[in-house]
């Protein structure tokens, strides 16, 4: 269950970039080939944020599909699962997308303006 460690990395990264601000939403992008299960990530998020500056924040997960370019048949296609196989049966593929595991952005409670 590496998702707890992954979630901890998300929380550490966000806490580092948002010192002192209240975090409302954390947007992450999880590729289907990243090796991370979005449900587990969501499950771990409350645990990992409890007692931190991120407590109460919501995790928004955008799942992105795997995409490969096949060197055998020359096509590009989206993958239905985590196997790097072209529909033509070839495993000689270049991974174009889907391995991403990224904190995209965070939404922070607005700081009071001086107006």
């Amino acid at each position: 269950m590496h998702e707890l460690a992954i979630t901890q990395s998300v929380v550490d990264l966000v806490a580092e970039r948002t010192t002192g601000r209240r975090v409302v939403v954390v947007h992450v992008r999880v590729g289907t080939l990243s090796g991370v299960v979005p449900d587990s990530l969501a499950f771990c998020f409350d645990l990992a944020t409890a007692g931190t500056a991120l407590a109460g924040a919501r995790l928004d997960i955008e799942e992105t599909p795997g995409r490969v370019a096949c060197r055998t048949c020359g096509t590009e296609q989206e993958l239905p699962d985590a196997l790097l196989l072209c529909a033509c049966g070839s495993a000689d593929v270049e991974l174009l997308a889907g391995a991403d595991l990224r904190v995209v952005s965070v939404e922070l409670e607005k700081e009071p303006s001086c107006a």
Partner: protein
Amino acid sequence: MCVTCGCGEAGDQGVRVTALGEHEHEQVHGHPHAHPAVDTLVLEERVLARNDHLAEHVRAWLAVRRILAVNLMSSPGSGKTSLLERTVAHLAPTREVCVIEGDQETTYDAERIQRAGARAVQVNTGAGCHLDAGMVQRALEALAPDAGSLLFVENVGNLVCPALFDVGEHAKVVVISVTEGDDKPLKYPHMFRAADLVVVNKTDLLPYVDFDVDALTQRARSLHPGVTVLPLSVRTGDGTDDWYAWLDRLASTHDTPREGAVHGAAVRP
């Protein structure tokens, strides 16, 4: 879907419009309220960036010392530690070998390696299911391997999590034993895709189990085209010469002596 709090139906996640400040909902979605005003901070940072940064630092530290690092990964019980015991006994007369052992608990494996004739440190991960670059960094400080040595990192027995974490190694080796089933590559694609070498251990048991080495090879190569699959038996020694030859080849491709100070630089960034 409400773009601020995420309520409503999923399915429109490809497009995100972030409203800054107070907003009213025009769509009907069952819980009238005003959301707090928010600022959006765009990060676009890789979640594992810190681990990967530490891993690069470990690799640089090793490179200065001409230390070759091999990360061994497998299910529990495939024979990683036995392979290392045999490897240490074979190589120790000619080459300095040291080992970082990863397990959730106990120092059993590090003790086995020391009895086999190599220096070892044990990393106990507690609840953790894998080693990460930070753990290897701390272990290297304790181990202080000699320049020019061969370093093995025996990861926590687990075919899932260790695949994701770069620990600063030069090669990832996956060990699978014939009692585990030849369908493992398809069940654990991340691990086999990451592997630079697949060692098939316990081949002395092949007459007693339904394990097809060719099928395993084909499945591993469907995930990682051309990956070397090396059947061997740690118990009898069959095939282990190929393993030593593979290590020699790896060493020769990474053996680029670098002039300069070996001392002084800390493992930590």
